[in-house]
């Protein structure tokens, strides 16, 4: 049985000229990078662009990766900074047409919610909704901690903030999520009683 290569093995192969080894790294980390990107961007098209950009940047800078941390931690740092730059740029680009689009988006959102009531009843939908109310930093902290298997120290390094700050923010984000989920789930119970 062939033993699975570690991220470090694959990086070494890429640096020795075997570019195709990078596709294995992409396959391994694409789901998490994309999940993180979609949480920031709130739509699939932008998230896909951010995630692709992130992997290309990582490839270009692969030679500077010191391997003192996990590849995933380094990659998530790139994802975070790429997403923030993308959102900042997008905010500047769309500032002039912001008002009208917002109205349309809200209308669409409303009808979408009523049309897909059944779909909304899944807990994951509520969780996504609750997470989307958090700040970008808190979204990153919660996602990296619970889904990215990153320690508080690794998250601190990825987001360039002290580990204690990450701990406090995670605690507060959890409290906010709990409050929001309780509110959303209460509504769900009401809806079930009315139907």
């Amino acid at each position, binding site marked *: 049985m062939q033993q699975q290569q570690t991220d470090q093995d694959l990086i070494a192969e890429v640096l020795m000229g075997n570019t195709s080894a990078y596709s294995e790294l992409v396959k391994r980390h694409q*789901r998490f990078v994309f*999940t993180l990107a979609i949480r920031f961007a709130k739509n699939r098209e932008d998230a896909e662009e951010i995630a692709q950009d992130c992997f290309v940047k990582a490839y*270009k800078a692969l030679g500077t990766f010191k391997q003192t941390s996990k590849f995933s931690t380094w990659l998530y740092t790139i994802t975070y900074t790429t997403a923030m730059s993308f959102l900042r740029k997008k905010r500047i680009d769309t500032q002039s047409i912001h008002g009208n689009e917002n109205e349309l988006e809200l209308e669409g959102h409303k009808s979408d919610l009523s049309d897909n009531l059944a779909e909304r009843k899944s807990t994951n939908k509520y969780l996504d909704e609750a997470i989307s109310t958090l700040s970008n930093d808190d979204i990153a902290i919660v996602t990296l901690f619970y889904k990215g298997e990153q320690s508080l120290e690794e998250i601190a390094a990825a987001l360039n903030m002290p580990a204690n700050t990450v701990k406090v923010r995670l605690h507060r984000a959890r409290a906010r999520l709990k409050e929001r989920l309780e509110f959303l789930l209460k509504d769900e119970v009401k809806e079930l009683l009315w139907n």
Partner: protein
Amino acid sequence: MELKDEELTRLLKGMEMEEPSMSFTRNVMEQIKLEKQPVALKTRVDNRIIYGIAAIFGAFIAGVFIYAIANSTVTYELPKVKIDLTGAVDKTLTPGFLTAFLFIDVVIALIYFDSILRRKKGKSLQ
């Protein structure tokens, strides 16, 4: 409706990951084909840099030596030859100059020492 801490943790740990489009990896690899092949930092920081630092260090010492010689007051008397370097040394090697000289030497030595440690660490990782 109250949510327990354990329930929240379970929900967060169980949240679903999003899946990018089927062509995601292919798109990334196509973009990568247009990029230059990455080079390991270890190969980039090669011995030439170390030799460069050593050369600068050597040149600096030689420069100070030449400067001291050039600024020395040499008196010559016939038939008796008398060379007096005491004043030159006192003038050139002032305490400030010596401190600066030693400081630069220490910085260069630290850079050199750091590069040695990095090389050792790199070898132990392999």
